[in-house]
């Protein structure tokens, strides 16, 4: 029974429903299908990035450079679009994913080959990527009138009732669902995070798996870079500043253990949707958007405390007693 209905995801899903009920009791307009579709569309970038981050966190790493990666690819493809307005959008998207993946690979190589702690690597690359945006753009903005109409219209294009941006998130969710459950790579990610030593004895290369996790996260950040810049039709140095914290928050809220090995696609998606609902509901219930940062901070703390209680390891009783008697 517990296998069929994962507890953590159910609680989180319930929390989102309660939140929606509370909002709808005052503003029924918020829960209309059109508005919920808008909320989902607005949350799509967060969902895509949270899935990439999930893979990285599952392998006991963390990627704090996703927002800077997003901003750098976004700026790069915007400048490519300005220089070559005729370049078809699929090519642009391919370039974005490739650029993102390269930046992810840089993180990955440093973690894999030099065994530098991921937090240090990605803190460093975070500032380096942001600095490079300034270097390539000279600090200037790329505005909507400079981009080609095809470039900016693509994520807004409606297919089967939903914009392309939403479809990008849905397709990513489906691909990740299959990847995590059905492929060798997906299972080895769990193995590496759950018990790296055992993973080595099963023939899994821990460092290499972590490297590919960073590449996946980087590629998704690259994709989101294009979607972000084209959706808001502007590119500048500071876009998505601090967004990496929101992405980590979505994962932690979604029950992905920062110690690695525990988490699910559903959890990451629900975590992102939870933050998305809160973000979109704040202006509706007349709370200043300045509350957003504090709310996601508190949500991280509550979620991580809650998850630690739920998943506390009972194996090391001796140590606990020693701690209790001091």
């Amino acid at each position, binding site marked *: 029974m517990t296998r069929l209905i994962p507890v953590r995801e159910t609680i989180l899903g319930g929390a989102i429903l309660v939140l929606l009920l509370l909002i709808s009791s005052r503003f029924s307009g918020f829960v209309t299908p059109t508005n919920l579709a808008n909320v989902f569309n607005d949350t799509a970038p967060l969902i895509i990035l949270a899935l990439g981050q999930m893979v990285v966190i599952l392998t006991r790493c*963390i990627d704090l450079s996703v927002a800077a990666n997003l901003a750098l690819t976004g700026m790069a493809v915007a400048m490519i679009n300005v220089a070559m307005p005729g370049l078809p959008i699929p090519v642009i998207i391919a370039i974005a994913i490739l650029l993102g993946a390269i930046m992810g690979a840089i993180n990955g190589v*440093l973690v894999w080959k*030099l*065994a*530098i*702690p991921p*937090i*240090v*690597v990605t*803190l*460093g*690359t*975070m*500032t*380096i990527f*942001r*600095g*490079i945006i*300034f*270097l390539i753009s000279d*600090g200037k903005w790329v505005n909507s009138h400079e981009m080609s109409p095809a470039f900016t219209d693509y994520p807004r294009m409606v297919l089967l009732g939903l914009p392309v941006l939403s479809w990008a998130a849905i397709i990513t969710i489906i691909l990740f669902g299959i990847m995590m459950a059905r492929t060798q790579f997906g299972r080895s990610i769990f193995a590496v995070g759950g018990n*790296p*030593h055992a993973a*080595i004895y099963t023939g899994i290369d*821990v460092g290499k798996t972590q490297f590919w996790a960073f590449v996946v996260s980087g590629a998704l950040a690259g994709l989101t870079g294009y979607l972000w810049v084209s959706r808001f039709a502007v590119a500048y*140095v500071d876009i998505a500043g601090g967004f990496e*914290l929101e992405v*980590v*928050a979505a994962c*932690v809220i979604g029950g992905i253990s*920062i*110690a690695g090995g525990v988490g699910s696609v559903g959890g990451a998606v629900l975590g992102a949707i939870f933050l998305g609902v809160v973000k979109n509901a704040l202006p509706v219930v007349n709370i*200043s958007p*300045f*509350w*957003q*940062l*504090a*709310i*996601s*901070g*508190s949500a*991280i*703390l509550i979620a*991580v*405390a809650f998850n*630690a209680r739920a998943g506390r390891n009972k194996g090391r009783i001796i*140590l606990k007693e*020693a*701690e209790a008697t*001091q």
Partner: protein
Amino acid sequence: MTDATQTRHVPDRLNSRAARIFKSWEALLLAVAIAIFVINSFASPYFLSAWNLSDATFNFTEKAMIAFAMALLIISGEIDLSVASIIALASTAMGLALQYGAGTPELVIIGLTVGVLCGAFNGFFVTGLGLPSIVVTIGTMSLFRGISFIILGDDAFRGYPASFSWFGQGYIYWVFTVEMLLFVIIAIIYGVLLHKTNFGRAVYAIGNNPTGALFSGIRVARVKFILFLLTGLMSGIAAVCLTSRLGSTRPSIATGMELEVVTMVVLGGVNILGGSGTIPGVVIAAFVMGLVTFGLGLLNVPGIVMSIFIGLLLIGVIALPRLWSMAAAGRKS
């Protein structure tokens, strides 16, 4: 993973004391600092001026104050990414108190108290609930700065009393600033604390083997909690200095400073995984970073380009010794 398979070479005798000092990370860093100083004085005619150099110290004094406490925290195996947000919250609290007519002594007390309380908050989550410090402080990084945003929005607090500006703008004697004095005092206190006291030995022991430390009778949780308090207190002191120097408070104050503090600590030779590092190393690292950013500033390099340099420094400082040892291992086999 490779540690277990590597053969350990036991030397016949230990290096002499002089050789150890000469080959140490700190000596290398000092050489780098001197080299940067010399290069800078050739690169810009404005570098070698007592007043300019005095101004340059503001580049690192506030960060270094936090870096000393952070060094102890990282040696013990934890980290605090919320320090810049603690500065924002402490500064906002001081600004708020100012609106209710607080004078300079009250402002300082409030700034330090908020810092300590934030540190206690982090410490409670890490030691009380046993949660990983990276996640906790990523959370409080949003929370503390978030509270500043709730209080201030896009507004700012201004109009600090003239006597309050002494901390960030005052001079003790000639070109020596109040912040420099604080920097020296704090460096000495932390040097003694880490290298000459039982507490300092406990910090190293915890960083090398927390379980072993626990069974040796060290109160691991208490030591870590104190370290979080100290980091909070130092952030409070830095908040007083920074607010006094800028003369205003915005919720975006000190954004990204946690990165520079961690870089300074790692550059100072502290192992990011815990267990080793020295205060003199951090002191020299503070000078290196201050000289680099000041020198680049004189050459009209914009701040964001300097941040590329700091990012490269952070990664390079850890990567180079590892590349070096990999190359050395490659030669032997």
